[in-house]
């Protein structure tokens, strides 16, 4: 463990912006992708449900 | 000159270096139907486009309710409904959206309910939310024709409206046109099929190639 304190950790040796932006953006993109896919699934399910009810 | 209909005076039309037709005269009064007949290439489509103002006549004039349309184009155009060989539909939009947009662009007022019943009337309601692109030849034509159930315009100019339609649709269309005529409308129609439309007065204009 080579961080002297949490603030040192967050400061990242002065490169906080670059490091945290990179990691943050990655997390954000992946999370967004999951949400987008789930939304797409809900829409598809709803449409399919409507169609199934139509047919009955 | 107090006609309430449309009068053509000595129209002639030249395409390329050929005179397609000349000395065309007719008067169409409310309730009247004009068939334009003739062989392929005799100039029927050209005459219809000329009447709408899409191409210029070589000579002659067209009068609408007594006034030369050259001087009262807007009045004439807001009483006119033209359907040519092309359907005027966007392939990426559904029939409903297409009809809505077309009506607005033409300056008419329609609501969705009216559109649905128009589609119903010519029996394409089933396809109302598919994109027009996937419809068959005849279904596209029917969607285009459903404008006739939405409009209040007086003069209908229809270029081969029956082509590509199956026989039930032809019957539906025929009865719609005669209804329009009996309400005091006018229609100019070209066709190669034998179709009988009942009208107060029917004229036939035969072009020869």
């Amino acid at each position, binding site marked *: 463990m080579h961080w002297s304190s949490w603030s040192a950790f967050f400061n990242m040796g002065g490169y906080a912006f*670059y490091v945290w932006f990179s*990691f943050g953006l990655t997390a954000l993109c992946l999370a967004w992708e999951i949400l987008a896919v789930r939304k797409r*699934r809900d829409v598809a399910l709803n449409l399919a449900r409507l169609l199934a009810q139509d*047919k009955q | 000159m107090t006609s309430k209909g449309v009068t053509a005076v000595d129209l002639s039309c030249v395409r390329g270096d050929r005179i397609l037709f000349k000395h065309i005269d007719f008067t169409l009064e409310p309730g009247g139907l004009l068939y334009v007949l003739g062989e392929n290439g005799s100039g029927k489509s050209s005459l219809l486009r000329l009447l709408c103002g899409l191409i210029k006549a070589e000579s002659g004039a067209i009068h609408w309710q007594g006034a030369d349309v050259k001087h009262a184009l807007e009045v004439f155009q807001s009483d006119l409904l033209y359907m040519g060989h092309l359907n005027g539909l966007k392939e990426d939009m559904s029939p409903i959206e297409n009809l809505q947009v077309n009506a607005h662009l033409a300056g008419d007022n329609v609501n969705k309910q009216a559109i649905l019943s128009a589609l119903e009337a010519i029996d394409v309601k089933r396809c109302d939310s598919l994109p027009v692109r996937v419809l068959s030849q005849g279904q596209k034509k029917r969607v285009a024709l459903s404008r006739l159930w939405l409009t209040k315009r007086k003069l209908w100019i229809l270029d081969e409206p029956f082509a590509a339609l199956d026989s039930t649709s032809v019957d539906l269309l025929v009865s719609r046109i005669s209804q329009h005529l009996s309400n005091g409308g006018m229609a100019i129609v070209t066709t190669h099929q034998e179709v009988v439309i009942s009208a107060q007065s029917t004229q036939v204009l035969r072009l020869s190639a």
Partner: protein
Amino acid sequence: MNINWFKYSSPQTFYPLAGRMIPWFAWIAVIFAVIGLYISFFIAPTDFQQGEAYRIIFVHVPAAWMSMFIYMVMAGWAALGLSLNARLPAMMAQALAPTGAIFTLLALVTGSFWGKPMWGTWWVWDARLTSELILLFLYLGFIALQSSIDDPRKADKAGALLALVGVVNVPIIYFSVKWWNTLHQGSTISMGAAPKMVTTMLLGMLFMALAFWMYTIAVALMRVRCIMLERERASDWVKVLLLKATGGNA
């Protein structure tokens, strides 16, 4: 035997199977990510040249690896779909493309955010960066082509063909770009200047790459399920499936 396998790879049987696999891959991804992040922030030592900024490597390199790897896998599925005229492989190819494009974008952006503190500039026309950019274009071309053809079967086939043509070209593009870059000796920086990898660094990158990999599988499976629902919503198996689901709820 073969024929049987493909029968079971029909959407109808694959849909529930995928549904059962997703949570597994998702959880494995989370576990790997936790390990990988721990290594990258707490075990890997500070770099004596670049300071802490080098920690970007732990997302940058795995993302870059994934971006290339996914393209190969996608082309593989595409080839399979085209040669067997089967639906599932084509759907898999389609499901992978957006994830691949996202990793490519991430590699580019995180690379830029590394380049700014290290090189003092957001971008240089280095061979690697340039070919990564071209890879992004290839992904986007694939996605754009598929989304502008509405008949799904047609879109599948057209996309597959494009992916195959692309895969023949990727090595050619890569080498030509490299050659171009060494011929004009414009950029004075090369990535050879990166410090020698400590094993822990390698380990961190490996775990992060594994996490991304598992994530990719999970998301691709989710997306392929959506695609199946969208395309086959009128078919009987979807109806049965939905009825079962609502019956279970009631």
